[in-house]
Structures are given as C-alpha cells and as structure tokens.
C-alpha cells in the first residue's frame, strides 16, 4: 500500500463520494428510481461501503447515525477517528489500511465484528468498551508481544480471533498460550480450537493461569464491593440518613472546633467524651434506622400508587380501544355501502348524516372515558398526596424529636464540661494540678472568661452542626415531596390529558376527513 501512497493522490470523504456510494449501494430498480427522486437521507442508511477509495482520513461520517455496517477496507487510513457518532455500528472493517494504533473506538459499544487485518498495529489496546466483541481480526500486523494478548481476556463474547501473520505467531508457545488464556475462544486463525489443544494448553499454563484468575477474581470482587457500597450509600441518601450509621456526625462536631478539641484534653474529660460519643451515636443510629424504615414505607406507597394509576389507565385504555374497534367494525360495514350505492339524493344525505353522527358519538364516548379517568386520577392523586405529606410530616417530626434529644445531650455535655473546666481552673489557680497538662490547654485556663468563652464557642459549633444536619434532612425530604407531586400533576394530570384529547381529536378529524374526501370523490 505504501507504494501507492506516493503515487496516487489520496482522496477525501466528501459529500459527493458519500452520495455516490449511498445511491450505488441503495435500493435497486423501481425502488431505486423512487429513492433517487426523493433523495436518500444519510441518517437512514444502515450499511455503507467505502472501499478502494484511497481514503487517507476518516471523516464527514457524523450524519450516518443509524449505520450498522461500515466498510473502509483497502484505503490508506492512518488513524482511527471520526467514528464517535456511529454508535449503532456492529460491523467495522478497517482492513488493508495503514493504522498503527487501535484508538477512538470507545463509543462503539455495540461493535461485534472488528477487522483490522493487514495494518501496522503493534499492540491490542483501547477497546475496553467493546464488551460485545465477537469476532476480532488483527492478522498481518506487527503484534510482537504475546503477553499483550492477555488483554483479550476481558471480552467474554469473543469467539473468533485472527492473529495470523504477526511476529508473535513465530513464538513456539503461541498457540498454547492463546488457547490457555482465552478459554472461550472457538476459532483461532481460521481453525477450530479443539478440546485437546485447549486442555494441553491449560495444563501447561496452569499455575500462571490460576494466579491470573485469582487476580481477576479479586479485582471483580473489589469492584463488586465498591458498587455495593455506592448502592448502599445511594439508598441511605435516598432515605436522607446518609452517614448516620457511624460516628461521622459526631466526628464532624469537632472537625471545626479547635476549642473543643483542646477542652477534651482536660483530664477526666476523656471518659465523659467517650460516654457522650456513645450516646450521641446511639441517637444517630436511631435516626438512621427510622429513616430507612420510613424510606421503605414511602417506596412501597409510591410503588402502589403507580401500580394503581397504571391499572386505571390500562382499564380506561381498554375501554377506549373497544369503543374504537366497535366503530371501526361499523365503519367497515357501512362505508362501502355509503360510497358505492348511488341512491336517492335524500336517502344518501340521511346515511351521510347518520355516519357523521356516529363519529360524533364516538368522540363523545371517548371524551367521557377520558373525563372519567381524569376524575379518577385526580381523586387518587389527591389521596396519595395527602398520604405522602402525612408520611413526610411524620418522618420530620420523629427525626426532629431525635435531633432535639441530641441537642439535649449536647447541652448536658456542655454543662458537665463547664463544671469540670471550672473545677480544673480552680485547681490550677490553687496550683494543685500536676505539671503534665499541656501548654495549649493551660492557655485556656488563664481566667474564667477565657474558659467560658471556649466552652461556649465549642458548644455553639456543635449545636450549629446538629442544626445543619437536621435542616439538611428535612429540606431534602421536602424537596423530594414537592418534586414528586409536581411531576405527578404535570405528567399524569395535565400532560396525559392533553395528549389523549389531542389524540382523540386527531382520530375524529381523520375519520371525518377521510369520509368527506371519499364521499366527495364520488361526486
């Protein structure tokens, strides 16, 4: 190919080329004629072949959104690029080009068949997202590293692999290495991987494989755990009680409270603190559990609501469908007679009116059903809203009670701390205290005011933290409720009704138009 490179002018993928290709490869004969007349939309094309075009650079393909199969073989392409928009691609042929690196394929998640035969690729890489890959052909390339083939292990669906004509093929262990490391592979280099080879290979690489698998398993487990953790956190967040099942909140109390930290270092405060911490966490846990419980209840309620709404809509839909079907039967029966039978003008007129009346009746019936549904849903939504707001109020009430207890606890702690502080101050004043009190604490016990202000500021910080947490909780739950009710109102009441009414009107209009057109056509 490189010999052509110098002599022939590389071509660019331009509109003309694409248009030509599309028309050439589009429908034939009569359909082709029609297509040409009408013009073909690039967005509708599912398969495109651009081979032997001397293309150097891929581009200008962004409009082929529904492309499933793309052939760019036998060109002089040097880089894989410009394919990001072709997300529906299943089949990609880039063989006989000058590609050096596999790249820019991350968006093509549906890709099953990738052909990179006869290029200059040295490594298999950058294909992490191609989970559906079934056939991979990288024959006649510059793959030198057998170890690199381990990369292909992550493709669970890979069954056919072509590596022929690569330097790694010369490795004596090539076949067994591939067979051992890709146990699901069925065809390697155009040949079936038989059971015997596979077993022999497996034996050969037994230990290495086991290590490898162990590593993979660990990684998978880790990932799983992480996912689980995130999921849990999501759940807690949805219940508005995240991080309340451990001592995060308590720790946060002292995070921005240097005085408090110092105060805690006063002798005998240790024990008190640990007690305080325990009780505090106990309340946190209570909130947490309560929150989760309420969350489950809310979810169940919401689920039930949607189920009922769905059922109601389904029943109503069925009613409407039946009505329409009934009319269609009538129409099938009556319309031909109306159109064909030329009778007395008066009679015709009557039949005409009769038909029109039936259409009106259909409209009435459908609208009645719709109004019924609107009423029904309105009632139900109201009831649901009431129940939900009750639930949320209940939740808030309980949670705020628990937070009050927390504040109470803080107050008690504060008082005790103050007491101890004063006692310590007295001791220090009297000089009864050992010298082992750190200097920074000593600074606090300069006089009563300093001590008091330190304790109070610590207390304030704590209270603020607790208040914040409570606010956070209640605000979030309020927002959720408002959002939910708004969505319900918008979607289920207004939007749905609007759509249905439009639909009915459209149908009736169509029926009327249809009749008028046909009827008048008879004259």
């Amino acid at each position, binding site marked *: 190919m490189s010999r052509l490179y110098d002599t022939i002018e590389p071509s660019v993928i331009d509109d003309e080329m694409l248009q030509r290709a599309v028309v050439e490869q589009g*429908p034939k*004969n*009569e*359909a082709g004629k*029609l*297509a040409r*007349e*009408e013009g*073909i*939309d690039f967005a509708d094309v599912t398969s495109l072949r651009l081979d032997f075009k001397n293309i150097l650079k891929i581009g200008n393909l962004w409009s082929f959104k529904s492309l499933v199969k793309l052939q760019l073989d036998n060109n002089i392409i040097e880089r894989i690029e410009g394919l990001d928009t072709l997300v529906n691609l299943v089949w990609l042929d880039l063989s006989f080009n000058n590609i050096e690196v596999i790249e820019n394929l991350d968006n093509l998640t549906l890709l099953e068949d990738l052909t990179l035969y006869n290029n200059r690729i040295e490594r298999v890489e950058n294909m992490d997202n191609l989970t559906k890959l079934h056939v991979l052909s990288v024959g006649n390339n510059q793959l030198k590293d057998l170890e690199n083939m381990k990369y292909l292990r992550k493709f669970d669906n890979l069954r056919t692999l072509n590596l022929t004509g690569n330097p790694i093929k010369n490795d004596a262990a090539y076949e067994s290495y591939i067979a051992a490391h890709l146990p699901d592979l069925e065809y390697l280099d155009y040949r079936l991987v038989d059971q015997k080879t596979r077993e022999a290979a497996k034996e050969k690489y037994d230990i290495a494989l086991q290590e490898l698998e162990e590593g993979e398993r660990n990684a998978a487990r880790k990932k799983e755990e992480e996912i689980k953790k995130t999921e849990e956190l999501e759940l807690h967040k949805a219940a508005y009680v995240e991080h309340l099942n451990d001592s995060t909140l308590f720790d946060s109390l002292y995070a921005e409270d240097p005085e408090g930290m110092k105060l805690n270092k006063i002798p005998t405060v240790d024990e008190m603190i640990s007690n305080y911490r325990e009780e505090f966490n106990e309340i946190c846990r209570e909130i947490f559990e309560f929150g989760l419980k309420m969350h489950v209840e809310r979810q169940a*309620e919401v689920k*039930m*609501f949607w*189920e*009922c*709404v769905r*059922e*109601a809509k389904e029943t109503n*839909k069925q009613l*409407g*469908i039946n009505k*329409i079907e009934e009319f269609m039967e009538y129409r099938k029966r009556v319309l031909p007679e109306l159109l064909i039978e030329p009778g007395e003008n008066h009679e015709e007129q009557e039949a005409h009116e009769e038909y029109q009346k039936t259409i009106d009746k259909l409209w009435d019936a*459908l609208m009645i059903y719709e109004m*019924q549904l609107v*009423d*029904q*849903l309105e*009632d*139900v939504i109201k*009831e*649901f809203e009431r*129940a939900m707001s009750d639930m949320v109020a209940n939740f808030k009430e309980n949670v705020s009670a628990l937070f009050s207890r927390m504040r109470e606890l803080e107050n008690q702690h504060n008082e005790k701390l103050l007491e101890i502080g004063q006692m310590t101050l007295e001791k220090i004043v009297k000089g009864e205290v050992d010298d082992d009190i750190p200097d920074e604490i000593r600074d606090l016990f300069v006089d009563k005011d300093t001590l008091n202000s330190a304790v109070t500021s610590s207390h304030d910080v704590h209270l603020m933290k607790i208040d914040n947490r409570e606010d956070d909780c209640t605000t979030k739950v309020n927002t959720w409720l408002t959002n939910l009710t708004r969505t319900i109102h918008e979607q289920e009441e207004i939007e*749905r009704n609007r*759509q*249905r009414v439009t*639909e*009915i009107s*459209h*149908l009736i209009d*169509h029926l009327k138009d*249809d009749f008028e057109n046909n009827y008048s056509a008879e004259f």
Partner: protein
Amino acid sequence: MTEEDKEGSPPVPKIEVNDDQREEIDKKSEVGSQIGNNLDDDDEVKEAEGDEDEEGEGVEKGEDEGTEGEPDELSEEATALKHELQKIIVAPPMNPKIMEDDEIVDPEKYPESYRVNTNKEKLCLLYAASYTRQYAQMYAKRKPLLLKPINECGVEKLVCTTIKPTLLPYKPLYDWKGAAEFVADYLDFVTLDPEHEPPKRLRSPTTILEFQRANCFEYSTLLVSFLIAAGYDAYVVSGYATREICIMDETREVCPLLSKKREASKKEERPPMKRYQVRPPKDLQSKFEIKMKKRSDEAKEKERRKKLEEEEEKDIEAHKPLPDPLFGTRVHSWVLILAGKRGVEENFFIEPFTGLPKAVDDPEYLGIESIWNNKNFWANMQSCEDGLKGIQYDLGDISSWEYMFPSNEKPELKLPDDEYAADNLEIEEEEEKDIEKHLDIPKSWVKTITLSLRDFQTRCPSGKKTKLYKRAKLERFAPYLMDDGIVSRLSSFSDRELIDLEESKEVYEHRADKLLTRDRNHKTNWITENFSPGRPKHLKKHIYKATESGPESERTMIFFHHARVNGLERRLETPTEMTEHFKDREDFLFYRHVLFAQRTKTFGPASSGTSPRTILRIVEHYHRNEKVPADEDISVLTFNCADKKISITYHTCDEKISASTREFTKPDNWDDKTAPLIFHEAEMHSTFQVNPHDRKKKQVELYQLLEDLLKREEKSKESVRASEKEVRDILEVRQQEDFKVNLDVSVYDVQRNDKAKKLREELERRAAEEKLRQEEMEVDYLAPFLSLLDDPNNIQYSDALKLSEECLRDLKHRLIDKANLIQARFEKETAELQEKQQWYQRNQVQMQKDDVNSYLAYCSEAMFKIHILQLRLDRHKEQAPAKYMELQRRLTNDARLRDHLKGSAL
C-alpha cells in the same frame, strides 16, 4: 356338600343343640369325619379336643356362662341326633349355578390344605363352634353367624382363614379404588339362595378367580384379601342390605362416569383492594330497574327449577321399585375400611358388586351381623334397628363388638366403672392365659393368589361386561378383544327404557391411529374424537358432523401445537371460512381467518377436490413484538383479495388508544412477476398516523413495504392452500384408519407381540431340538452287544457277565487303538521334521532367503503339531483309566445288568 362327605359319620362331640345350631352341628359332624378319615394320629385329635374344652371354658368364664357338656358322655345321643338330622336335611337348597361349578370341581385337583384341616385349624374350628354356641344362646333371635362355612372341597374352614392377603404385581390393585373396580369387573355375581340366609359355602379366592363367578361373600373375601395386602384396614362385613344392592340393580343410579362431570366449580378470588385503586365510574343505571329485573329473573329461575324438580320427582316416583317382601332380611356382604391406614381419613364401605365407595350410614345397608378380617372375627353387639346410623366401629369396645380371638390388636376400651374394670381385669388375665396357649388364627389355607397379566387385562369374564344405569348403559371390553380396539362404550339415553339413544362415549386402547375416545351425539350427529400424541399431523381432537364428513364442511380440529412446526393449535372450518389459531410462533402470528367464495353449485360430478375455493379475504392477527415500536408493529393484516386491497392496523402504543392504519391498493400489474411494480402514492396508499407529528414514510419505504406485503400475501395464500390440503389429507387418512383398524402392540407385551412371540417360540423350539439331539447323543453302549444276544429283553446272569466283559474289553481296545493312533501320528510328524531338517542342513548353502523363511515356517508349524500330539497323548493316557472305570461303574449300575452284576459283586 357332596354325598361322600355325608357317608360314614363317626361319633361327634356332644353338644347341646338348639334350632339355630343344627346346621352348625351338621358341619361339625363333617369335621369329625374329616378328622377320622384323614388323620393317622388319634392322640392329636384328642389333644385338640381337650384344648378346645379348655378354651371353651376360658371363654365361658369370661362371659359368665357355661352350658357345655362333656363330649364323651353325650356322644351316643349326638350320633343319634346326627342321624336324625341327616334325614331332615335331605336336599339342602342349592343354587343351581353352584351345582354347575360343583360338577366341574374335582376335590383332588386342589392342594392338600384345601381338603384337609390342620390340627390348629381343627382347634380353631372347635373354638369357633363354641363361640357360635354361646352367641346363639345369648342372641337366640339373631341369625347364626357365618363363621365356618365349607369350602369348595366341602371342608369347614374358618372365614378368617379364607382371607389370603396378596398383593398382585399390578399397579391398579395397590389402590382401593382400583382393587374394588377390578373385583367388580372381574367377577360375575351370583345371588344368595335363599336370599335371607348366609351361604353355606365360601370358596377360596383362588377358586373364585378361576371361575369368575361368586356370591357377595366371596366377592368381599377376595377384595379384602387385596386390600389388606395393600395396607388398608379392611374387613368383610356380613349383614343385610336392600334388594337393589343384593342383585346389583343400578338402573336407578346415575352412572358414576356421567356424574363425575359436575364436580368442576371455580372459585375466583378477588384481589384485595389496593389503597389507591380508582373508584369505578358512576353507574347511571336505575337501581330500581336492576332490582326489578333481578327479581323477575329470580322468579323465573325458581319456577324453572321447581318444574325440573317436579319432573324429576315424578320420574322417580314412576320408576320406584316395587316394595320388597324380603326387605331387611336379605343377607349381603360388603367391605368395611377403617380410617387410619394408607391415609384413609374416614371409615367407609365398598360395595363389592359395583366397586363403589359408600358412606357408613348409607341407607341401602340395613344391618351388620359380624365383621372379620384375617386376624379376628367380631360379632356386632349394637342394634341395627335404625339402619347403620350410629354404629360405632371401635372394635376395641367389647360392649359394641364381641371379638372371637383374644389376640385382639385393637386397644381395649377401659370403662370408668370400677366393678366393670375389675371384671375386665379378670378377663384380661384370662386372655393372657389364652395368649400363652397361643390360640391365634391359623395360617390361611388358601394358596397364594395368582393372576396372569392376560387375565388381569381381560378383566371381565370373557372380556365383556355390560352394566345398566339410570338412562345409561356401560359396556366394557378387554383390550385387544374387539377388532377396533374399543374398551368401553357408555351410551346415555333420554328415556329409562334405553331406547332413545342420545349420546355415546367410546374409549379405545392400543389403536395404531392413536384414537383415544369418540363421543357421538346422536341427536345432532356431532362426533368428537380425541387422540393421543404421536399422530403424523399431531391431531389432538377432531369435532365434526357425521353427516358431513368430507372436506370443506363444518369441523374443528385441535392439534398438539408444541409438536407442530407452524404452532397450529386449532383450526375451525365452515364451508366458506377457515379460522386457524396459533401459539408460540416466532413471527408472532396467532390468528388467521380466511373467507372463501361460495362454491357455485355445479350439477354433475362433484369437483370439490379438483379446483380450490377462491380466497376472498385473509385476516391475520399478530402479537406485539416488543423489539419494534408499536407504530411499526403490525397487529392486524388484511389481504382483501377480492378488492385488491391490503390494509394494516398497527399495535397501539402504551399511552394511546387508537392505532395507526395503512391501506394499499394493489397496482394493476401486481401479479406480473417480470415488470417492476408501478407505484403512485396518492392513489394507492392511504394512512392514518396516531401521532400526527411523526415522520411520514418515504416513497421508497412504502414501495418496499408494498413489495414485502405482496410477498406476504403470496405466502399466506400458500399456507392456506397447505392447510386445505392438510385437512383433506387428514380426512383421507382418518377414513382409511377407520376402515381398517390396526392395533399397536407394545414391544414389552410378550403375550401379544407377534414378532417377540415368534422369536421366543423359535428359541424354545431350538432348545427342544438341542435337548433331543443330546438325548440321541447318549448312545446305548450296550446296544451292539445286546443285538448279539438271542433275547435282549431277558438277560441271564451269564449273559450279563459276558456283556459287561465284552463291553469293557471293547472299550479297552478302543482306548489302546486311539493311543496307538496318536503315537503313530506323532512319530510320523517327528520323522518328517527330521527329514526336513536334514534336507535343510544339506542344502543350506545354496538356499534363497524365501526358501529359508518357508523352511522356518514349516518347522515352527511342525513343532506345534508335534507338541499338540504329545499333549493329546499325555491326556489320553491320563484319562483312559478313568474312562474305563466310568464304564465299569455304569455297567454295574445299568438297569439291565444291575441285578446280576450286583449279585456277583456280593
């Protein structure tokens, strides 16, 4: 009772006799005769009698009565009485049918246990006699118990020992229903004669199975034998029943096969109300009107029902049986199953004649005298004045049930009354003693019941049985008996005289065409045929009119759709329509309706087979294919062939109620395959899109769609034609099958499988031939020498000696000859080998390689031969003396020479 039995009656034990016991004594005398005739050891008899006395006393003490005299004292009187009685019963009333059987019966044919009583049995019989006596004393008014009737050999046997629990290797018999049905089917019943007395003879189950005729007691005994073996707590009941039961008159009963239908009753559970369930729309109908309508409907319904009931009553009244003069005294026997075993939750009866279960308070049963199983015998102590209502079946309750053998398995019912308890205690002590004396029921005298598979399958005597019910007739046939494989036919009639046939249900088995049942309504002439899986076209059910059995007429065919490639489940036809229902098809098609043009009536020969009907319209319905958007997913596809139109209705979207439609008019040149289709959108296509803002389809797409639709139409037509052909094929095949019915024989059915049978017979024949040949092989070694004698049949001593000598000499000679022969061959081979070796050594130098090889081969072969000969010689030498000895032994034992030679040996 045959004449021989009555002759020569020896002394009988002396017994006080009252009227009821006469027959008992009569039998007893026979026992005596049996004892006298058949036993060598008189001591045993005495011992037995002694035991019996003790037993009797034991029981007497227990029951506080004693009337037995000493047998020795009264023997003469008894003898006299016996003679007298014999005169009285000159000709006991016998059932003529039993006489028939008796003529066939040869007592010698039966095993010994049938003809003779063991000592233990005798003991028990005596004990039973005592029991009967006491019973008769206490309840003089009641009929004598059936306790020890005679069996087919005229020997007295205890009823309990006539039960022989046997589990036959046929699965249906493991269940009480199956067993009862089998017994009811297998036997023909004989009424008791007289009808108000228990029978005098109770034959063994084996005999009954052989003759297939039995009275109710024999029925029950056989059934209980099966049931006990199958693990049920079953008893033979002796009692009284109505005439209808006793003569198995079921003409007033609804056939059980017909009544089963009515069971189906559906319970539809309403799902619980959900909290946000929408309220139903307001009902604007007048409540009052609904109410009034309901009321009038109810009244009508009531009237109708009343009318029906009245009719029914009238009908019953009209066909009421005549009053029975013997009501309440007709003796009958049936089976009682007590709860507890095999998951039986409630006590119930089984009527042996019909095999049907009956409630324990069934009004058809009027009273119970006694019940027994293979372990014990209980007399009923409860009053049966009010039928069987209130009868307790707690067999441990001695106030209700008087047991005969103390080894009562049932728990004793302790009474709170102290005195009574004391009495009881005493009784128990006595019983303990009794048990120590090991008086329990002897082993059953009946041979193991056997039944060949063929007999089991034949079921009814000669394979056929007809039962009459109320407005129904049931005929049963054994499998393979009838040429068309029919096994049962249930005909229902509209009248009681069974004249006006309404419906018949036929059941078939083993038919090669897999026909299972054929129901025919004779009024409408509709026939329903059911088939089992495995037919070529997977036909499951075929409903058609007998009068119009040809193609293109009204019919329904149901198929095993899982087995069919096209998933066809049902095909309904009328002369101008065909509707097909499909299931689980990959193209989501589930319904296809075809409308044909009316056939113009042509005079002359019918041409229905030649030209297919014109298709006017094909309508196809499809299920939703979730992979395609609803607006693209065809729901109803109509090919209006007559109008050249194709219309499509798409599925409705989730949120919509109307469906998009599209209609094409076929271009004029649609059936011209060569030219491209001419397509003008405006004239040939119209559409309604539910969503008006959706993109309109392009010309090309419409064109392609039209092309596709035309192809589909072609395909649909093809499949319609294929369906028509299939129907014709099926009908043709069915006709042939019905014309000549073939029955399938399982490869495991050794009786009926001709191929297997032939093979087996061939094997047997070969075995027989082989045996014959072997017999021929055993040559008479004396024959050549005997022929030299003047009179081979009369061998003298001297001849015998001579014969044996010659015989032995001849053998010796032959043995030596043989040894010599082997020796000669050996020498010859050795000589040849040596010669060859010499020749080889001479010519070794100028020999070719091939020659050397052949020489070597020869050498090894020769060596082998020599080796074998040597072996044979050695063995011969070893065996020869043994052979000689053997002949000598045989000669001494030979039948013809034995006497002489033994004498000489001595």
